[in-house]
């Protein structure tokens, strides 16, 4: 186990390093000189040259990369060419928002998927079970942003029950914070919940066919009892994998939902950065997103190993 952990950690670090190179290389290809962009159309050539020196973009790519990567290790993402403020804290703030958004969405998805998926599996021959799987199919087919728009329409514009968008920091007002996040959580969670429902259903269905469930029933447990005691933990193993994959997609789905709900998260920062050619910022955000996905994969793999004694 420890060996596995170390090995997996090594892979994580190596992948992150390679990802950093990839991200940097990709950004280097981006047309547009940060200095020119910062100064806009009316800049003088001297000013541009001066700014280049200031930004350090007149150095060789290797030097720039080493500088950037070196900073990353210390949590320093550099200083934005455009806003001339340090990038790290900005990303930190935004990441916190996005993380709350994603995790909340995941919780909603789980709250939907686990009971419904299990129910649909146990009753897979009953009309209600079939109806649930049909509903989950329809849920999957709805784009997240459409779900968001519809939710806003119903709950904010028509019912005037919740804000249509915007984000209130927790520190400012916990109640408003919650209200501002409810709809985004729902729109992320509903769609992902539908996807997850299907996986939970098929995992539970698979487990229900396992011999050890029959053994449990032969011991005197009822169908449901056997499923609870022996089935769900086993079913959770494939679901955890999917959960990991989904967290990654959620992270990206959040970009869209942030746009719909005007939430200042990482996605918003990324799109702004791209639009404003704030290269260093984009580079940082992409790096953080990629690292987050790699980290999620790592956690899932480790969780997988913890859950399953056969892998220990």
């Amino acid at each position, binding site marked *: 186990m420890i060996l596995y952990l170390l090995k997996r950690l090594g892979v994580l670090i190596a992948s992150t390093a390679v990802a950093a190179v990839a991200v940097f290389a990709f950004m280097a290809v981006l047309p547009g000189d940060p200095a020119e962009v910062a100064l806009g159309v009316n800049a003088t050539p001297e000013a541009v040259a001066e700014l280049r020196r200031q930004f350090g973009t007149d150095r060789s790519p290797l030097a720039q990369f080493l500088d950037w990567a070196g900073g990353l290790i210390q949590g320093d993402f550099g200083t934005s060419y455009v806003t001339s403020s340090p990038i790290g804290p900005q990303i930190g703030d935004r990441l916190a928002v996005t993380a709350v958004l994603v995790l909340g969405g995941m919780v909603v998805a789980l709250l939907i998927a686990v009971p419904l998926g299990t129910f649909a599996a146990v009753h897979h021959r009953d009309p209600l079970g079939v109806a649930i799987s049909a509903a989950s199919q329809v849920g999957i087919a709805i784009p997240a942003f459409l779900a968001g728009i519809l939710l806003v329409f119903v709950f904010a514009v028509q019912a005037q029950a919740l804000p249509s968008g915007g984000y209130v920091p927790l520190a400012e007002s916990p109640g408003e914070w919650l209200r501002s996040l409810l709809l985004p959580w729902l729109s992320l969670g509903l769609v992902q919940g539908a996807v997850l429902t299907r996986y939970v259903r098929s995992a539970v269905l698979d487990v229900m066919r396992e*011999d050890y469930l029959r053994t449990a*029933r032969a011991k005197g447990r009822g169908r449901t009892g056997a499923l609870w005691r022996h089935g769900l933990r086993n079913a959770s193993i494939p679901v955890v994998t999917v959960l990991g994959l989904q967290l990654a997609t959620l992270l990206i789905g959040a970009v869209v939902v942030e746009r719909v709900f005007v939430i200042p998260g990482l996605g918003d920062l990324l799109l702004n950065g791209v639009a404003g050619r704030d290269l260093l910022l984009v580079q940082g955000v992409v790096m953080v997103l990629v690292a987050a996905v790699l980290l999620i994969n790592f956690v899932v793999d480790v969780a997988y190993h913890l859950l399953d004694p056969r892998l220990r």
Partner: protein
Amino acid sequence: MLRVEGLTVRAGSVELVRDVSFAIAPGERVGLIGESGSGKSLTALSLMGLLPEGVTAAGRARLGEHDLVGVPESRIKGLRGRELSMVFQEPMTALNPLMRVGAQVAEVMTLHGVARQEARSRALDLLERVRLPEPGQIAGAYPHQLSGGQRQRVMLAIALANEPGLLVCDEPTTALDVTVQKQMLELIAEVAPALLFITHDLAVVASVCERVLVMYGGRVVESGTVREVFTRPRHRYTEGLLAASRLTPRGTRLPTIKGSVPPAGGFPGGCVFRNRCPHATPACETAPELTGDGHAYACWHPAD
């Protein structure tokens, strides 16, 4: 103690087991033999109320004063693991891979009212009783850390935990090596109360059971004491099976039964064996009754 009458198992319109009747007295060890697909497992599972989805049983089966067939799950749930236990064929998949072995043994006792602490210590005794070395260590192991034979012993320990009146074993040794099989069979013969033992290996039945039921195509085609059935088989299928099971010396041709076992629903009407039987005549198009006291058989042209 167990009385089965007219047990029929269907999947949709296909009859997989038809009109099976037999009885097991307390302490009696009965073998159920037949080739793959003859309906042995389904017969056993219908007694346990564990038939797979989409498969239904009809007829009567009583264990003591409890009905086993056609009653709701909630009524027989309490019997399983206490009055009636079962050991399955596949030792590799029958145990929960995520749970320690000791807990799985203890579970069957706590389920039927034994206190947690007591169940735990009795689990160790049970593991010892099925002759597992170092029961303490085994109890703390996960199933994948045990060999097939060890796992099958654990299954036996689970089955015996509440001292049931009847033990059903569905090919418990098929997946094991001969040496391991021998130990296991000895163990079963020693600890089992009344026993319904399923196998396709005639020699195994002969070493464990007193009475035997021969199944083919979902029907019991012959039944009687092991000695009588195996020395003087009357049904042509039993005869063929016995002949094919004896390996003749090298250089000689092995006796065979022509053709092969048809898939479910592919058996002929009338006598299910008639399309493979060398003695079949048009008379076989009507199904023969299982007749005879003690040694019964269902054949129009029995061997003598």
